[in-house]
């Protein structure tokens, strides 16, 4: 094992207050079983899962209730035993604020498991079987992007990076997971390394908390895997935990724009994903719960909880003693990249690493938005190396193609630029708008191209049919207009003779 400080660095970034201690004083607690769970069919990136259950159907804990549809999709399992209440649109945490189809499960309180098939020696299984089992277990990236893990494992890579750098303020679920379940993370890392056929495996944690490093170190020594896995300390500088930034810090390499880490032989997975993969295969426990940090100045008793997916956020808040009088804004995720929610009836989904309640003083800014003064503070802090002020300029003028030329699609929406902007411009809102509008226009363009292609094909077909018809009519007219004479009779006689000549050999054979 090599414990080292990573030498590389990424451009830009900002140093943020940690504010993690707010929730990390205790242990990971569990919640009382909620009466009803809401499981959106689309909790992951890619195609929504396809429901396999009917209203009124009895399901066991861990039972598959929605199948992945296509390669980039993830399965969903019942987090507890109970009866399917309905499959209906429900409010789910997503930026559009639209309702989405969800399986609503009434818990029966017995928490009865389906028959399980634990695997005591998963590292001896062939890799292809592992991928299929992770697909069936619904494991998706728990760092925030929720990309289905099995789809990431399709390509083998040189180095596997397990990301324990949790750089956003307040969020502490990965930290708590490392402190309490380091062994699961390490075995999960081994399992994923085996599946990928990777030669190296690195676990990266931030250097600001010695306990996480010690916990991982101890677990590595205990498990005897210290030869297989390296431990790296990375400086805490937001957005250190971003995949591309972490890779740059660890290896000095840059992931190509519009490319994937796999293109340079790397794969990055979250510590929570590694632990979930281990539990899915070793104990046959599919992904139906996760660790969630509930924190912020708006929460009475912040803490970290092992939460069943589908638990309404209000029950989570109630378990923390409720809201304080200052509570003003509910956010899923961290203060930089989180999603503000209009109410707490939303369920916890696979992406929900943190429930943050901010106070009035956090939300209300004292300064109004001012014009851009081209101070370039945003350029200095952009970790993706973009020109935020230029992008802002073009997007404001609705010149989205110009913004595309300046690589707005490589923006990781980390929010550093908006954080440092002295004019308090909500820059990320502009980039998000530009990215989604560009995607929408591309889609409209594709549809238009398809329609044009079909129209052209159809026109060609109609033309061909018309020409064939005209030609036929012309031939008939020509035939009719020729006077019936000796020639015509001779023609008929010749035709009859020809047919006879063709028939003759057949009759000979018959005789």
């Amino acid at each position: 094992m090599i414990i080292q400080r990573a030498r590389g660095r990424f451009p830009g970034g900002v140093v943020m207050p940690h504010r993690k201690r707010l929730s990390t004083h205790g242990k990971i607690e569990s919640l009382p079983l909620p009466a009803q769970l809401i499981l959106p069919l689309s909790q992951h990136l890619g195609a929504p899962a396809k429901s396999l259950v009917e209203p009124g159907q009895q399901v066991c804990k861990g039972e598959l209730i929605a199948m992945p549809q296509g390669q980039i999709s993830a399965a969903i399992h019942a987090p507890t035993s109970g009866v399917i209440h309905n499959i209906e649109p429900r409010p789910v945490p997503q930026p559009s604020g639209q309702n989405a189809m969800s399986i609503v499960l009434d818990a029966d309180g017995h928490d009865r498991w389906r028959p399980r098939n634990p695997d005591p020696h998963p590292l001896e299984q062939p890799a292809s079987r592992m991928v299929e089992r992770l697909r069936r277990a619904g494991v998706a990236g728990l760092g925030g992007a929720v990309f289905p893990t099995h789809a990431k494992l399709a390509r083998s890579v040189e180095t596997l990076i397990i990301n324990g750098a949790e750089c956003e303020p307040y969020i502490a679920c990965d930290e708590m997971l490392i402190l309490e379940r380091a062994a699961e993370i390490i075995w999960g890392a081994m399992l994923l390394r085996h599946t990928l056929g990777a030669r190296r495996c690195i676990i990266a944690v931030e250097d600001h908390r010695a306990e996480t490093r010690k916990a991982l170190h101890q677990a590595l020594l205990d498990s005897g895997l210290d030869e297989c896995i390296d431990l790296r300390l990375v400086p805490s500088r937001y957005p250190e935990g971003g995949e591309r930034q972490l890779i740059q810090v660890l290896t000095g390499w840059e992931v190509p724009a519009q490319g994937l880490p796999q293109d340079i032989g790397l794969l990055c997975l979250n510590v929570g994903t590694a632990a979930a993969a281990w539990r899915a295969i070793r104990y046959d426990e599919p992904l139906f719960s996760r660790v969630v940090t509930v924190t912020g100045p708006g929460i009475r008793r912040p803490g970290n909880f092992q939460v069943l997916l589908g638990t309404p956020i209000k029950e989570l808040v109630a378990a923390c003693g409720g809201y304080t009088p200052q509570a003003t804004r509910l956010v899923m995720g961290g203060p930089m990249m989180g999603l503000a929610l209009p109410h707490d009836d939303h369920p916890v989904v696979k992406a929900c690493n943190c429930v943050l309640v901010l106070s009035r003083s956090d939300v209300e800014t004292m300064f109004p938005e001012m014009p851009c003064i081209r101070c370039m503070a945003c350029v200095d802090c952009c970790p993706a190396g973009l020109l935020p002020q230029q992008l802002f300029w073009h997007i404001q003028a609705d010149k989205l193609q110009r913004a595309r030329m300046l690589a707005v699609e490589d923006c990781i929406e980390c929010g550093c630029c908006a954080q440092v902007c002295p004019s308090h411009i909500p820059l990320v809102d502009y980039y998000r708008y530009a990215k989604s509008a560009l995607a929408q226009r591309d889609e409209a363009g594709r549809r238009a191209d398809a329609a044009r292609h079909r129209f052209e094909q159809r026109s060609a077909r109609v033309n061909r049919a018309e020409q064939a018809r005209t030609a036929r009519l012309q031939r008939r007219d020509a035939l009719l207009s020729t006077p019936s004479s000796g020639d015509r009779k001779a023609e008929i006689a010749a035709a009859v003779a020809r047919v006879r000549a063709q028939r003759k050999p057949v009759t000979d054979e018959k005789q």
Partner: protein
Amino acid sequence: MLAIVLITGLALLMGLGLGLAAERLRSSGDPVADAIEKLLPQTQCAQCGYPGCRPYAQAIAAGDADINQCPPGGTAAIRALADLLGREPKSLNPANGAASGPRLARIDESACIGCTLCIQACPVDAILGAGKRMHTVIAGECTGCELCLPPCPVDCIELIPATSEAWAYPVPGR
């Protein structure tokens, strides 16, 4: 004297070169019409008075048609056309119809008698069916052009707003 001969010779030589290039390297098709067609929504609805988006684009390129005759494209298409052609944007010509959001035809399948008239009318082959069999609209291919509505003898086709899958963030600050 020498200068005159030289310049005349050069001019003739270059003229010959240009003439040859114009003949040999002639671009196929009509690049202006192509660029215009790219900006049209490809609904093929013929509301502009031409039998499809391509003919309309050619008419604009030839100067026969105005840029404000495309209701499905709406203001966005008019603005894009005005940008491309360096003209002033106009408001949509009401004679061609009113702009509407993206729409989709839907056949009331219980009422369909299977006459195939709508199939013949559809410019993008987005209706599936056969004689005396139920017809249905292939939602992914339908452009919402309304051309299937008039021929239907039992009025069983309606246009519904198309739910666009791609959601976009709102424009900030507006």
